[in-house]
């Protein structure tokens, strides 16, 4: 759609929200249906494809032995990349990552890293010499809004699914053999809100994202911690709105975790 059509669409989204309704009939705090698809790639060490409504993303894990950082010789690490594939939307382009995908991948990265859901010390193979680098590569296959939650959830389930390759005596992975599963200490679930006019809704559709004034993502854990915030968009939130979002994120996070991550 052209910018003009999106502007008309945005007007309609706003008008509908003012009447207390969402254009796709959902309640303000209602997620679209989630579909979890596994085994999408045998070459991945862990994999998960998520459909959140029509938003379609896939996260794949590769465990690669590498050198530790000098200041953490006994700890592995993660590396997250998210790519908005040209096939997912008429406006996405092949090319180097833009700021949108950089923000997306960094938010997913911190959501995993800072929640301490992975024990980086357990990813040490030989202190000072060799550690696991957990590569998390996420691709957006169809764009219909709320990439943040879809990508974070796909990454989490893919990590849960990940088998650690067995290494031979030359530190090369032995094809088809595994030394166990990756262990997660926590399951951080991200929950994203957008504000359109004065309404705040969860799990925005594409039309709602195109109409948004501001976006706010809250990641929560099963042991009742907030583990991440990210605010975006050219609008603002009041402190009260933020607190409401946080409370709702705990509730929704619990539901999503129960349904898809156990």
């Amino acid at each position, binding site marked *: 759609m052209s910018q003009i059509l999106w502007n008309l669409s945005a007007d309609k989204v706003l008008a509908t929200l003012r009447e207390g309704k969402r254009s796709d009939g959902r309640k303000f705090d209602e997620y679209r249906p989630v579909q979890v698809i596994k085994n*999408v*790639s*045998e*070459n*991945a*060490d862990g*994999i998960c494809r998520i459909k959140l409504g*029509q938003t*379609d993303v*896939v996260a*794949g*894990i*590769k465990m*690669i032995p590498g050198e530790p950082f000098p200041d953490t010789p006994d700890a592995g690490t993660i590396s997250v*990349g998210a*790519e908005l*594939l*040209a*096939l*997912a*939307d*008429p406006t996405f382009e*092949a090319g180097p990552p833009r700021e949108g995908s950089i923000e997306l991948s960094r938010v997913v990265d911190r959501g995993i890293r800072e929640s301490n859901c992975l024990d980086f010390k357990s990813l040490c193979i030989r202190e000072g010499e060799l550690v696991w680098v957990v*590569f998390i*590569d996420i*691709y957006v*296959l*169809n*764009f*219909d809004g709320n990439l943040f939650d879809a990508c974070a959830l796909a990454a989490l389930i893919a990590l849960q699914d990940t088998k650690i390759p067995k290494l031979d005596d030359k530190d090369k992975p032995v*094809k088809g053999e595994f030394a166990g599963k990756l262990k997660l200490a926590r399951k951080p679930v991200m929950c994203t809100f957008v504000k359109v006019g004065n309404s705040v809704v969860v799990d925005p559709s594409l039309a709602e994202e195109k109409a948004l004034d501001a976006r706010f993502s809250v990641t929560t854990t099963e042991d009742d911690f907030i583990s991440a915030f990210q605010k975006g968009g050219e609008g603002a939130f009041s402190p009260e709105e933020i607190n409401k979002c946080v409370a709702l994120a705990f509730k929704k996070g619990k539901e999503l975790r129960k349904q898809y991550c156990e």
Partner: protein
Amino acid sequence: MAKKTGSEETVTYVDKSGKRLDGRKADELRKIKVEVGVIPRADGSAYVEWGQNKVLASVYGPRECLPKHLANPYKAIVRYTYRMAAFSVPDRKNPKPGRREIEISKVSGEALARAIFLERFPNTAIDVDVEILDSNAGTRVAALTAASVALADAGIPMRDLVAGIGVGKAGGHLLVDLNKAEEDAPDAVDIPMAILPNLGEVVLLQLDGLMTQKEWEESQKLAFQHVKKVYELQKEALKKKYAVEGNSGDMEAGARAAEEGVVE
């Protein structure tokens, strides 16, 4: 890299009962699955599973060609982008497009172009994007197979579908649709081909390795013979979608492709 020789030399690529390493016969394709319309945002799309290979293809266009200096006033241009997901290979692939992907994109786009009535859409671009989610030899032909179905799904008028197939040699045997283990044979020759089955034309052809003229001619025959199977699966998938969805509006061409095997 130089191919490894060593223990592999004793591998038997076709055993006495005529079976290959994975149990197939010499002229047997791997299992192929074709789905149409898998990416709602796209004008057309398709998904192909071909053995372990898994490929998504989308089509956007014909649409305005930007930047404009790339536009051709006489016809549409095809921009084909072949990419492999980082996790789609045994080692992790650097997400930055490599030279291999750029070359494959070029020759594949040229192969597709032959099938499209480009001159009907001057100054436009038809963007075809394929993503490899999992791989085990033969991704470029699986990708073209998917891309061609996605074009039909987008309702773009075509001379014929483009069907991909691999032929080649391993352990002295001429084989159809080599898998990775076979491509690693010391004497392996892999020949990816794309064919317009109804028109009997070759639009993609690459070969690397050592092969006699006679072996080649035999291989080409095998390709033409077995590409029909791929073609049938493409048509079935299109038929299946358009039988269900009906036959209205811009789906017409795709529907016709399903009915008649050729779009025009």
